[in-house]
């Protein structure tokens, strides 16, 4: 388990100080896939760099299975870092080494014999599906393949934790998907705790079990991904879940009807039949004030704002929606 306690980091520069992290506390369970999401500049990279102590926190602690990383000597810290490996947005492969030699790199650092390192690296390249590229050089591979090599390299020292800092941000959606599947496989097969740093909600949505939302160096919200998708409580979370949310609040503010918000998180339905069905079965006529939904496979995600002239209708609509699986409905007060 990784426990982050009251972590703060302030950068001092000639232009003044930047509070990159402010009192961040998180606990990440062993074996979890934990997302840390936030806008650019929110402090995500600083947070991961504090986890493996590439950056020294200004205040607070990071505990790995109860061990405070700050108490380790330089040598012990280097050993610890083999247990917390990292993949990056830019892959950061050694361009003058073959793929095989890249995967061997962390093993060379530990002084492992070259035959054993080579054997293990070949197995790992096989695991990431690149056994045939062992002798190729990184420049000869596509971005997705390079990230696979980086993943194989990160696994070489049998880490307990894999940190992924914007690991798919430089990749196209299809490649992103395949890399995320690979990471999920690794998490399941090897039981490695995965921490995913991203600015894309879609990444969190497709792979993470828990998520923390980082906003201007603070944890705005954390919890189950499905919970936060369904009921984003903080403004930062709403901005990420419903990027068009600004429009929503302006709709409510200028209207004196009654609103309910219906959130779909994987409901097996398409939106219109649901509204039509409600009208047919219960005789409740809803007006769609605002909707931001999308379907993935045959599932619905997103939210919809329904308005009703009477409060009673709104209540009944809520009751109706609530009994549908994977749909959450809540009353919306004005001026939220």
């Amino acid at each position, binding site marked *: 388990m990784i426990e982050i306690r009251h972590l703060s980091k302030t950068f001092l520069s000639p232009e003044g100080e930047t509070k990159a992290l402010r009192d961040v506390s998180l606990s990440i369970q062993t074996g979890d896939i934990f997302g840390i999401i936030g806008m650019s500049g929110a402090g995500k990279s600083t947070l991961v760099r504090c986890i*493996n102590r*590439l950056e020294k926190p200004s205040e607070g602690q990071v505990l790995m299975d109860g061990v405070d990383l700050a108490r380790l000597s330089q040598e012990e*810290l*280097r*050993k*610890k*870092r*083999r247990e917390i*490996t*990292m993949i*990056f947005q*830019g892959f*950061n*492969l*050694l*361009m*003058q*080494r*073959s793929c095989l030699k890249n995967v061997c*790199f*962390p093993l*060379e*650092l*530990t002084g492992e014999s070259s035959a054993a390192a080579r054997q293990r690296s070949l197995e790992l390249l096989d695991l990431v599906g690149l056994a045939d590229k062992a002798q190729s*050089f*990184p*420049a*000869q591979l596509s971005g997705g393949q390079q990230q696979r090599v980086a993943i194989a*390299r990160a696994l070489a*020292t049998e880490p307990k934790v894999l940190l992924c800092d914007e690991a798919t941000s430089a990749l196209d959606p299809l490649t992103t998907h395949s890399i995320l599947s690979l990471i999920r496989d690794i998490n399941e097969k090897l039981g490695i705790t995965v921490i995913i740093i991203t600015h894309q909600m879609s990444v969190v949505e497709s792979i993470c079990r828990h998520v923390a939302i980082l906003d201007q160096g603070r944890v705005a919200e954390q919890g189950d991904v499905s919970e936060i998708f369904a009921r984003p409580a903080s403004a930062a979370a709403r901005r990420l879940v419903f990027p068009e949310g600004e429009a929503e609040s302006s709709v409510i503010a200028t209207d004196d009807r009654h609103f309910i918000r219906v959130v779909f998180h994987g409901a097996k339905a398409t939106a219109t039949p649901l509204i039509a069905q409600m009208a047919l079965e219960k005789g409740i006529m809803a007006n769609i004030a605002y909707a931001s939904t999308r379907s993935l496979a045959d599932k619905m995600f997103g939210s919809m704002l329904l308005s009703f002239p009477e409060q009673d209708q709104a209540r009944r609509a809520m009751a109706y929606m609530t009994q549908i699986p994977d749909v959450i409905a809540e009353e919306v007060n004005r001026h939220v």
Partner: protein
Amino acid sequence: MFKNIFNAEMAAEAWDVIISQFPLAFWETLYVTLLASLFAFLLGLPLGVLLAVGGKKGILPLPAWLMKLLNGVVNLLRSVPFLILMIMVIPLTRLLIGTSVGTFASIVPLVIAAFPFVARLAESSFREVDPNTLEMAQSMGASPMQIIAKVLIPESIPSLISNGTIAVTTILGYSAMSGIIGGGGLGKIAINYGYYRYRYLVMLCAVLLLILLVQLFQSLGTRLAARADKRLKR
């Protein structure tokens, strides 16, 4: 001044000189250049590493005073014109090899002049390595020495070869100059025959040979650098 270059008498005399003196001079130039380059690299490369990694935010932060000293020495040596440096290091040359004249002795001023240059070139090669790559190595638990040996140097090999070629060709040029203080080689012949005895044809031939050598080193270096660089798709 070049009026008489091509008369038959001059040509015959030049040919004599070329036959009798050029092979030795060529050899002298070659070995002085290569030996001086070797020593300049031996001193300059480690210094270049220190300059590249020793900064406050570098991978092996060194005391600020030491960095100031190293930078100061390099800048100082780089700003003394070679002609003057050759004279200034005469006592050191005597101390090191017993004499200050002769072909072999000219290696000392060459090394003194070239190693700070090599250090700066190497420093710039090392600085080309992506800082993210260095951070990757740190995140994998590499020690500063491991980063230098396994990342910094191997990743900058193509650039080091390119810059090394620049250094060798510059040292070749300097070695020609050292004819003035008694160093041997093609430079000495060019100066002796061309400047003191007005045998321009001999001088021209010596210069031609120097140009050929520079071309040779340069194309060799360019080819080696390209071959070493695995970033190029093939």
